[in-house]
């Protein structure tokens, strides 16, 4: 027998349950405590950025725009500038990228298109392992293994391409006994070590984007009779263009801030120098690492200003890279 629920006519005033998105009880504790953690992290990380800017401000006001154009770093004479270090930072990063870009592109293409299917996972973890190798190891590698060969290669470049201003060296290329020390410890040598550090990173981004190429379009190209290279050139590379550019710029962002490998290899020099093969250069991070120890208060704030400039440059490069990579991914839904 079924009993119907009794309708209580007296209670006509039934209101719907109040729905609220406001957290109660344990949820309130959770939401507020996690918000507190977020605020803490915001204060810490944001504090670093604000502190750097705040410390950099008096230096920039004191030296004005000359801070960016002055070559020498002589706090005793109140002459401080980062022009040399800024140019050095970019020349090391550019050398690094011109080595890392082709190699990472080729490696990414090999892993995504040519490698046997069984090897793929292994190769991917090898690239990841390369990214996990500490920078000091790459510094040792560049310093001990590569620098003698790089010096010889620099000599060859000077002999054969010396008419290009970048490859000039202030030494006699045809001397009976070549002066090896003029060719070592240069931006070129440091750039090689830094290249190996940034290579796995840009390679990983490129491979990631290549692996998202719509398989339908790849198979269509092959079915129309394209060779593998034809398929890569007409489908994979155009699709992955954003990833190639973005990955390269991400690598550039890291190359700009690299310290210890550069510090180990270069010999510091305070002049604006385009001759990348010649001994002596400087980068902002190497400047900080080399000068912090005997720094007075004003000098320290000048170093912080230099660090702030480096941070801003890296931030801009990374942001542009992120925008480019994200935009390239938004096209990933064009699957056939």
């Amino acid at each position: 027998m079924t009993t119907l629920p009794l309708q209580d006519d007296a209670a006509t005033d039934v209101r719907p349950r109040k729905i609220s998105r406001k957290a109660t009880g344990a949820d309130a504790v959770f939401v507020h405590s996690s918000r507190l953690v977020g605020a803490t992290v915001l204060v810490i990380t944001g504090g670093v950025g604000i502190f750097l800017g705040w410390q950099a401000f008096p230096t920039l006001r004191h030296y004005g725009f000359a801070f960016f154009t002055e070559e020498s770093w002589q706090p005793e004479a109140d002459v401080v500038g980062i022009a040399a270090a800024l140019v050095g930072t970019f020349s090391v990063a550019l050398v690094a990228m011109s080595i890392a870009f082709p190699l990472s592109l080729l490696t990414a293409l090999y892993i995504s298109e040519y490698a046997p299917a069984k090897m793929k996972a292994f190769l991917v973890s090898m690239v990841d392992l390369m990214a996990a190798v500490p920078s000091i190891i790459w510094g040792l590698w560049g310093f001990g293994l590569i620098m003698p060969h790089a010096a010889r290669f620099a000599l060859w470049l000077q002999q054969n391409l010396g008419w290009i201003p970048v490859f000039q060296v202030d030494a006699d290329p045809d001397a009976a006994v070549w002066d090896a020390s003029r060719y070592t410890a240069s931006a070129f040598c440091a750039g090689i070590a830094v290249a190996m550090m940034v290579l796995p990173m840009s390679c990983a981004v490129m491979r990631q984007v290549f692996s998202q190429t719509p398989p339908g379009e790849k198979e269509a190209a092959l079915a129309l009779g394209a060779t593998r290279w034809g398929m890569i050139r007409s489908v994979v590379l155009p699709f992955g263009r954003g990833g190639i550019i973005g990955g390269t710029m991400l690598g550039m962002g890291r190359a700009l801030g690299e310290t210890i490998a550069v510090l180990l290899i270069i010999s510091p020099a305070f002049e604006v120098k385009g001759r990348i093969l010649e001994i002596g250069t400087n980068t902002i991070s190497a400047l900080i690492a080399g000068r912090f120890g005997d720094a007075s208060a004003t000098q320290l704030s000048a170093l912080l200003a230099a660090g702030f400039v480096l941070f801003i440059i890296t931030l801009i490069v990374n942001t542009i890279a992120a925008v480019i990579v994200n935009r390239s991914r938004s096209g990933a839904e064009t699957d056939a």
Partner: protein
Amino acid sequence: MTVAPETGSTTVGTTHLPRYDDDAPPPVPRSSLGRPTADERFVQIGTWVSGFGLAWLLTQRLLPLGGLPWFLVAWFACTLLVTTVTSGMSGGLVEVRDRIAANVITVGALVVGAVLVSAIVFVALRGWRPLMHLNFFVDDMAGVGPKDPFDRGGIAHAVIGSLLQIAIAIAITLPLGIGTAVFMSEVGGRFARIVRTVVEAMTALPSIVAGLFIYTVFIVALGYPRSGLAAALAIGVMMLPIIARAADVVLRVVPGGLREASLALGASRWKTVWHVVLPTARPGLATACILGIARGIGETSPVLLTSGNAQFFVTNPTDGVMNSLPLFIYSTVRSGEPNAIARAYAAASVLLAVVLILFVTARLVARPKRAKNRRGGRPSPAVDVVHADPLVGMGQVQPSDRTEENS
């Protein structure tokens, strides 16, 4: 098989059986699709061999280009030349391009592999002699000069220093980093977006600047001495945005359906996070943390500015200077003494081994369990090293992409 009916024939619709020619040669078995045939493989290998021969002739007999590097370059160039000729003989320009591209791409990948192997082998070769002595792992460098033989002194103090510093840094950054990631991905809101923007921006902070920040605030302004604690704080400042961002990427991969199912069953948000989201993301979070540790333990520049350089055991991180592995390597390799340099390379091998162990652990933890997945267990979001790297892990990571790559 259709046969045209003969005109004028009365027997419409007779079946004609095909006649087999018993004297015909046996059919050639079709080679599997996509594999190079024996011909092609012979041409490929022959090309490399003839390139080798030509390069030998060029560099050793004809041109004054001594040395292994020139030989390798000549080998590569000659191989490309021979490839052009051989593929031009059988096909057109399209085929020539295809073969050359294949060769160039393979060689490029080989170069990168050779670089990685050469770095590991080089460090191990330069540093194997101190590693043969047990005291290298249990002693400190107190009273040991740079010229002393390898049976005196060791790097135990640097190992202990590294472990202590990374432990403190982890104790600070792990709760904060994962808490922030939970806040950013589970609570959300306008404030969370601000936090995410700032955290993403701060991953661009060069490590040396993080060290300089702690040096200025903690040591110069507050007047504390250089110590392991300062170094740990510097590493922490560097790692905090990295771990927060990596954990955020991992948590975003957790399927939204799981969250909704949990909430629909009546669980509170806190219960959902604690019992559903975090356990699902556990392998990914572990990977992110291990990779953060690997990054932190190998980073030299913040430590260089903040920790000082002790030659003896220091177990109290607040008590004055302290050494660590990267700092030991950096300060020893510049001394110029052969024995000291060998010690530095030995310490570098130890550091490399530590990173390698962490890396393999991360791989094992992140490995998706296939058998479980097939029975409908929840898929574990596996994370690549480089994608746990916040600088690379840009944007939304698609879960489907993950499983396809790691299986």
